[in-house]
């Protein structure tokens, strides 16, 4: 069953260019319907926790799938976000000539995305991780402009480095006698030696590239030149989350925290995460173009996740996972809102956003609400994840943990600056009416933005159960 759920998106995606639709309407219904079916089936397969599926390969290696708590957390997030982003893309991509190809790839990526979540060993995870990243390249280069091509090429180079690092790490891991099977707690605690630590750092760096961690972050702001629908769902949610999720599996399910805590293998990546948090926020504040600004913000927020994961405590894992899913939701909303601004007003920079709010009430509301969530205004979800991360850092009580807490707080102020100032200026600066687009409400874009906004607000009321569920997963009980 789980295999069907993973393959269906690719099949339905591949069929799309082959079908000849009578009109735009049925075309749209097919795409949205296909995504909804895939997402529903995926969610069902995740929740039903089917028996593990294993495929043996040469040399004792195998591909294995298993749905556990952590898989459900990220997988269900994807299953919710995919249909919403597709809904947005339906209106956003309307005038694109190659939209069939676009949607085919868009839908198909849900397959490896879910497979990544349910990977039961490191090899499967790595394959899915690279499949996702390389599979996203055609989407990155979808627009024919020169900037998009350069950006996609840069993404490719970074991804090749990531491939080299992860393969080297994996080979080292095998040569040290470890198997890479995912069991909560890892079980390598006492066996961890310097060679395994090197393997860990290589793998962590490889995942760090995927999550745009400093100093390997620069591909992410560059690829924002593509269509916003891609940036919002694929680049800034799927790709970076896959990196962070990989690290989570690596630390807590493959290595275990015992052999790494307190060694350079922890401090090194942790320091980079702290740097990313602050650096990303500062760059987001300095960049004037809207989409790269949000992309830098993504890098910074993935820094939060990495920071939490690398604290190597269950509490840190809870905070990291919470921030991972919350960020996916809020950042996608922000990007979709930014994309709407760009689509409807033709502005690309924060400066030009001034005074446009009166014509785009839904978009501005979505932007503002998700900004508040990013800043961490309780009881919105952003507060819970930052709170958990800070508590985990405080409990760690080491120098870098305190530095990280400081970075978290500084970044919170910067977040307010780079997100709320545009919102304030968009809403409160008056602008002559003729320079603005006409009001247009009610299309798929507005529906998806409204749904996302409502979801952010609604999740504020389920803080407690969500926290309990993620905590259970982080303690290996879920």
């Amino acid at each position, binding site marked *: 069953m789980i295999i069907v759920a993973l393959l269906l998106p690719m099949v339905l995606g591949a069929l799309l260019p082959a079908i000849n639709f009578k009109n735009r309407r049925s075309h749209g219904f097919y795409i949205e319907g296909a995504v909804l079916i895939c997402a529903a089936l995926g969610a069902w397969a995740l929740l039903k926790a089917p028996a593990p599926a294993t495929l043996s390969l040469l040399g004792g290696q195998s591909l294995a799938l298993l749905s556990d708590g952590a898989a459900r957390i990220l997988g269900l997030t994807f299953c919710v976000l995919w249909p919403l982003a597709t809904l947005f893309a339906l209106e956003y991509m309307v005038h694109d000539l190659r939209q069939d190809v676009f949607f085919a790839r868009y839908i198909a990526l849900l397959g490896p995305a879910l497979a990544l979540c349910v990977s039961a060993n490191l090899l499967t995870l790595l394959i899915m991780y690279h499949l996702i990243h390389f599979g996203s390249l055609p989407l990155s280069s979808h627009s024919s402009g020169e900037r998009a091509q350069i950006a996609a090429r840069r993404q490719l180079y970074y991804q090749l480095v990531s491939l080299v690092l992860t393969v080297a790490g994996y080979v080292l891991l095998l040569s040290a006698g470890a198997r890479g099977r995912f069991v909560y707690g890892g079980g390598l605690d006492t066996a961890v030696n310097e060679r395994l630590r090197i393997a860990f750092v290589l793998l962590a760096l490889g995942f760090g590239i995927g999550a745009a961690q400093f100093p390997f972050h620069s591909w992410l702001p560059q690829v924002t030149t593509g269509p916003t629908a891609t940036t919002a769902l694929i680049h800034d949610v799927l790709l970076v989350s896959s990196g962070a999720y990989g690290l989570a599996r690596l630390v807590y399910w493959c290595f275990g925290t015992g052999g790494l805590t307190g060694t350079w293998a922890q401090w090194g990546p942790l320091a980079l995460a702290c740097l990313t948090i602050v650096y990303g926020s500062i760059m987001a504040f300095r960049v004037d173009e809207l989409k790269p600004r949000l992309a830098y913000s993504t890098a910074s927020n993935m820094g939060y996740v990495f920071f939490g994961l690398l604290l190597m405590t269950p509490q840190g894992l809870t905070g990291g996972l919470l921030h991972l899913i919350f960020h996916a939701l809020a950042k996608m909303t922000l990007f979709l809102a930014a994309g709407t601004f760009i689509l409807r007003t033709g502005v690309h920079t924060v400066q030009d956003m001034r005074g446009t709010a009166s014509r785009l009430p839904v978009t501005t509301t979505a932007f503002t609400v998700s900004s508040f969530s990013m800043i961490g205004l309780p009881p919105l979800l952003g507060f819970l994840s930052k709170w958990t991360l800070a*508590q985990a850092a*405080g409990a760690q009580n080491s120098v870098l943990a305190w530095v990280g807490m400081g970075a978290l707080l500084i970044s919170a102020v910067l977040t307010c600056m780079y997100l709320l*100032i545009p919102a304030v200026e968009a809403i*409160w600066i008056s602008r002559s009416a003729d320079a603005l687009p006409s009001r247009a409400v009610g299309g798929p874009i507005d529906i998806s933005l409204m749904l996302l906004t409502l979801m952010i607000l609604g999740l504020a009321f389920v*803080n407690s159960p969500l926290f309990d569920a993620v905590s259970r997963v982080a303690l290996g009980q879920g």
Partner: protein
Amino acid sequence: MEGLLLIIAIVLPIVGGILVFLVPWLNENRKDRSAFVFAVMMLECIVVSLITLDSPRRLVLFEITSHLPIALLSDSTSSVFSLIVALMWTVSGFFSFRYMQHEQNERSYYGFYLLTLGSLMALTLSGTMVTMYLFFEMMTFISVPLVLHTRTKEAVAAGIKYLIYSVAGATMGLLGIFVLTPNLTTPYFVMGGSLNLQALTISQEALLVVIFITLLGFATKAGMFPMHGWLPTAHPVAPAPASAVLSGVITKAGVFCIFQMIFYVIGPDFIRGTWVQTALLICATITVFMGSMLAIDEKMLKKRLAYSSISQVSYVLCGLFMLDKTTFGGALLQLVFHALAKNALFLCAGAIIYKTGLQRVDEMQGLGRRMPVTMGLFILCALSLVGIPPLGGFISKWYIAEGALGSSMPVFSWLVPVVLLISALLTAGYLLPPSIMAFFGGMVDGEAVSTLSRAESSTVMLVPIALLALALLVLGSMPAALIDAFSGMANLLF
């Protein structure tokens, strides 16, 4: 339900504000809207009075996680603050009904005015640190539109400055909340604090550093040096009645947070005698002096009043940071009397702008002849701010000075009274000359002052100012009830 009143006190103005935004017929007629806003504020005053008369209550609203409750608390402290908030809001709101007629976007003004009241009320009734943080941030976000009101470039820049300073301050406060939470025996506010001294997760020195940053962060809203930069920019650009509450009331929100942190979370004994107390006192005394010095040099009336707020609110902080029963009483008295006087002064400035358009102190010559009642009330409130008996301001400063002199703190036992005295002279220096010029100036634009015609403010504008001045006079000459109440609180908290 037991705590229903607390919820009503918060929800009532918020619903009122939302209705102003959403219901079209409320905005068709200015009179209808004014009546509605006034009714909401009066009801709010009644609800808050009922809460004050009621016994202390605690109410858990919901839980973020099982260790992070969002809860409300009403006791004597919250009553003091929420009463000030509700009353000052009503008075300034009443003044707005006429004043705002010459501004645009009245609807959004009243909407945000009521929403800010709701969030401020929630802040004064908050019962845990996270609740306080939540409503502190909310109050910032909701009050920014009041600063932005005129939508000019200057206003937007001021609003953004206000936003950034406030969020930075709140974030510094959040650091304290992060670090203190695992070190407390209970997440709820408890009189005398709930620091778990036996099982601190970090060293006492580190905790003191964190506490210092926290208190400094919350002091941003109170305009304390070195976090005061936003205040003189943001307060004057708002419409006058909004400046009045920003300066007279919202600065007290910062004081409230500091108050809760010291007396309900950390406990005064943990800070007493440490470098944190010294450092905070240094900041506060510097602010008292600096605010007055800056005010003297400022020519715009509203901006001068804003600088004055920086100085006067730090009197309150001085009194609190001494951690002494007498100065504590003085601080709370100063809180009340400054709110009254500063509200009234900003409303006077608003009345002057409304009638004559004059904004600079050097243009005020002859104003006393044109608007005798307004200027008379202006002088009365200015005298209270300086600290002339029998007005309110005298008593508060007396208690702060007396408490300081009687305390055992080295240096500050004499430094605080000296700075207070100098600042009082400076206050006289920046408020009285323009008022006197208003009555005795010789020539305006080549015309003798005596020939100017009268252009007194309307009654709707004078009544709120007169009420505030009257309160200063009455409470100043018969302060026994207030002093009793505040020394009662002091006995509970120390």
